[in-house]
Structures are given as structure tokens and as C-alpha cells.
């Protein structure tokens, strides 16, 4: 456990050295400037749009961090040949993968946490400046704790994407890993269509195959409850728990395969 923690803390420090937290400044500037501009452009929908923008930016920035840092976590060590020195230490390959993953998840957690605080701060300012008659017309309160439900599922989705990126980086080059991870992310968002494929094809075999692919690919559209949360529609605790559990199980599966692949790699 100590070895995992050491690797994780090093990944976090390296991401700080790589100026990853700069994206937080960009996020804050984006939200603050938008909150001013949107008031002039959106016919009273500025709070809704700031919520949409804040949640989408959290997801996009997190996605880029997950993919572009995730794909380099293992391959960079191999390219720099620092893996040789690392493996001579009392760190197993499983601990190495787990540590790398935990470090990036920690980076993402800090990012998502700061972005959430920034989003709530901007919303609090907007609520403060709007008269009660305008606030009465909003679908959901300005400072709505339900936003945390969407942010929670975004974070689980990012954990899954990070696991995908690490998995691909254990056996392929960074460019190929990025392409594969992006491909899986896009396919994962279309995945729900495969579930109902039997309604558009007559072939039973094709429908079964589609159903199989539906279960194999990550079902990323399930993590998207942004629209519901912004409009104040109910997202039950049961849905959140079952989707999070699905995500964590998928992450566990990916990390176990990544460890399996990585432990079979010969670095001699």
C-alpha cells in the first residue's frame, strides 16, 4: 500500500510540475467572463447556461487531463527508461499500475473539486445579483446542491476514461493510446443505441452481436445527467449508486487487465 501511495503522490507532483493546474485558471476565466457576457445574450437564461457551461467544461477539461496524461503514465516511463530503475525497487507491477492510476485520479479529484467550488462561487454571485422575481422563474435553484450529482457522475466517468487510457498505454504508443481512448469514449457515448439494435435489424445474429458489444463497451451515456440536474428533474440515489457501481466495476476490470498486460511485458 505504501508503494502505491508513493507512486501516486509522485504522479500528482509531476502533474503539478507539468502545469496541469493552469487549466483551473482557464476554467475560472471562462466562467467569470461568460457570466458577464451571457447576461447580455441569453434573454434571462444565463444561470441555466452557466450551469451547462460549468458542467460541460468540468467534463471536457477532465477528459483531456485523463487522456493526455493517462496515455503517458506508463509509456513515458518506458521511453525515458526510468522503468528499469523503478522495477528494481520493491514495487510490483500491479502496485505500479495502481499507483499511477491513483495519482491521476487524485489530480482529477483536485481539479474537479476546485472547478466545483468555482462554479458555485459564480452561481452564488449571479443569484446575489438577480432580483427574486427573476429567480422565481428558474427551473432549479441557482445554488443547487443537486449539481453535485452530475459532478459526481462526471468524476466516475473520468475515472473510467483514465483507466482506459492507462490500459491502452500498457501496450501501445502514446499516439495510438490517445486514438484508442478517444475512440472508446465516442463509442461509449453511442453505446446505448446498440442496446435497441434488434428493433432496426431483422437478423438475430446481428442483434445479438450488437447486444454483446453494448455490454463490452463502456456505457458512458449513463453518466450524463447534466440536463436533468440543470432543469431540476429528479435523479434518484439508486440511479447514482448503480451507475457509480457499474463505473467502478468497469475500472477494476480495466486495471486488472492493464496489470496483466503490463506484467507480461519484457523490459530486458
Amino acid at each position, binding site marked *: 500500500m505504501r508503494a502505491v501511495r508513493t507512486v501516486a503522490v509522485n504522479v500528482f507532483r509531476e502533474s503539478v510540475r507539468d502545469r496541469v493546474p493552469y487549466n483551473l485558471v482557464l476554467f475560472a476565466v471562462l466562467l467569470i467572463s461568460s457570466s458577464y457576457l451571457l447576461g447580455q445574450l441569453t434573454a434571462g437564461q444565463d444561470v441555466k447556461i452557466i450551469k451547462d*457551461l460549468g458542467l460541460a467544461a468540468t467534463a471536457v477539461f477532465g477528459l483531456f487531463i485523463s487522456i493526455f496524461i493517462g496515455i503517458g503514465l506508463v509509456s513515458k516511463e518506458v521511453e525515458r527508461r526510468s522503468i528499469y530503475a523503478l522495477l528494481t525497487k520493491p514495487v510490483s507491477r500491479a502496485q505500479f499500475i495502481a499507483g499511477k492510476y491513483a495519482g491521476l485520479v487524485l489530480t482529477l479529484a483536485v481539479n474537479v473539486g476546485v472547478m466545483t467550488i468555482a462554479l458555485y462561487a459564480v452561481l452564488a454571485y449571479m443569484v446575489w445579483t438577480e432580483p427574486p422575481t427573476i429567480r422565481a422563474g428558474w427551473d432549479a435553484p441557482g445554488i443547487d446542491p443537486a449539481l453535485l450529482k452530475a459532478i459526481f457522475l462526471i468524476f466516475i466517468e473520468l475515472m473510467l476514461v483514465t483507466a482506459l487510457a492507462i490500459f491502452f498505454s500498457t501496450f501501445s504508443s502514446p499516439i495510438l493510446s490517445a486514438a484508442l481512448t478517444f475512440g472508446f469514449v465516442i463509442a461509449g457515448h453511442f453505446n446505448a443505441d446498440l442496446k435497441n439494435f434488434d428493433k432496426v435489424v431483422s437478423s438475430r445474429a446481428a442483434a445479438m452481436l450488437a447486444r454483446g458489444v453494448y455490454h463490452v463497451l463502456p456505457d458512458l451515456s449513463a453518466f450524463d445527467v447534466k440536463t436533468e440536474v440543470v432543469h431540476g428533474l429528479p435523479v434518484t440515489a439508486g440511479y447514482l449508486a448503480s451507475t457509480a457501481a457499474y463505473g467502478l466495476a468497469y475500472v477494476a476490470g480495466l486495471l486488472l487487465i492493464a496489470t496483466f498486460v503490463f506484467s507480461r511485458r519484457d523490459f530486458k
Partner: protein
Amino acid sequence: MKRSTRDLVLLGGAAVAFAAAIALQLIRDRRFPRDTHQVEQILYVRSGSALQRMTLSFDALAADVYWIRAIQHYGGDRLSGPQAQTKYQLLYPLLDLTTTLDPYFNIAYRFGAIFLSEAYPGGPGRPDESVALLKKAMVAMPQKWQYPHDIGFVYYWRFRDYNSAALWFQRAAEKPNAPLWLKPLAASMLARGEDRAAARFLWQQIAQSEEPWLRRTAERSILQLQAMDQIDQLNAVVKRFPPAAGELYSWPDLLRRHVLRLLPYDPTGTPYEIDPSSGQVRVAAQSPLFPMPQEPRRLQ
């Protein structure tokens, strides 16, 4: 060269280069002005479901972009002067895309209901598109009474179809949390559809909306109704006191004969116009109330 001097030279050089770029841009814009009004407005993707797929999980944000575009399109066309061929042609597709990407975008439906049905030049004069958008809203949010109410309003105010309006108000009254005044409204619509008081009552309900633009539209419509009452009174006076044979109708003539004590003004403070040959009183083209809506026709 010392490091600090070198840095200063580099930063100073960059500042000079950027300043030169801005100056050149200003000169170019002044000497070769680009006509932005001639740029054709294009909607590259018209399929909402295709867009929904392209935007992955960012469909709500894409809906916001299309909403902003719809507002800009409407506002731009409204202020752009007479261009009857192209005015508001993208308003319905933009609102349709917005509401496909975010089916719970309540205000986009209500905006469409009001402004798609508004007659030219205030809107495209397409109440059919208003109704289509509102029916789409009813599929997404069947429990809301506001959408059948808005459909009823479009049937009443734009189609002048009182039976359909009453039917939709009745449907709205059956929804959960519907206000109590909807049922009597449906009944009175059938009995006295032509009544200006019904229109005034409906606009007063809309004027209580939380949306400032919806309130402004309702307030303007209430002023238009007030102007209609005044025009009726003025027409009656003008008819009772026609000009001498061979003379034309005019306000100075009516003032000279002491038929009127003052020049008549509409509720926004703009003088009314009088048609010299027929004597018909109307709202002036420069009045904020122009163009006046067509009034519901009397029941046959």
C-alpha cells in the same frame, strides 16, 4: 547584452508588433469595409437527432448555443429593416434544434409560441410553427398546463379559431396545478370569443411571467388593446362629425371645429394618424405599438 535588457527589448518589440497589427487592422477595416449584412445566414445541420449524436454528452451546451443564436437571429432580423424575403427564416429551425438538443428548455418553447406567431414585421407570422413547437413541448413535459394554454392562446389570438382555443384551454385546465381561471376562460371563449376583454385577460396572465421579455411583449399587447379601444372611440367621433363637402379628414379640422380639444395620442404618447379620404384613425408607423395586431373577427 544584459539579460534584463534583452527581456525588455523582446517584450517591447512584441508590444510594438501587436500595436502595429491592431493599427493595420483598423486602417484595413476603414479602407476596405466588409459588408457583414450581406452574409447569408446558414444552418449547416438541420437534423436535431444528428446534432444530438455529434455533440456526445454536451447536447445541453449545444442547445444553449442554438438558443443564443435564435435570440440573435430574431433580434437582428427585427432591427434590420424591411427584408421580407429572408426575415426570421431560421427562427423555427433554430428553436426546433434547441428543443431537440434540450427537450426541457421551457423558455425556448414559450419564446417560439409568442414570436413565431407574431405577424410580420414583428415576427414571421407562422402560428402553425408555434403550435408545432408547443405540441413538441407537450410530449417532453406532458404535465405542464402552460403549453396547452399557449396553444389555446395562439388559436385564439392568431388563428381566431375560438372553438379550438376553448378546447386547448379546457385541456390546460385538466393538467395538474392548472390555475382555476382556465375552466371559465374555456367556457367564455365559446360564448364570447370576439370579446376584447378575453384578450386583455390572457395578456395580463402572460404579463405576470418571470421572464422580462415575455412581460414586455404582454405589456405592449395590453397597450395595443388600449389603443384599439381609443381608436374605436375616435372613429365614432370622426364619423359623427364629418368634414364639410369637398374637404378632407384631418386633426386640425376637428380641432378647429372644437370636436376635439387636443390632438389624440396613443398610450405611448405618439399622435394617432387619420386617413384623409376615409377618416379611419390608425396608429402611426413611428409608434412603438405599430404594427397593430389583426383583431379577432366576430363569431359568425
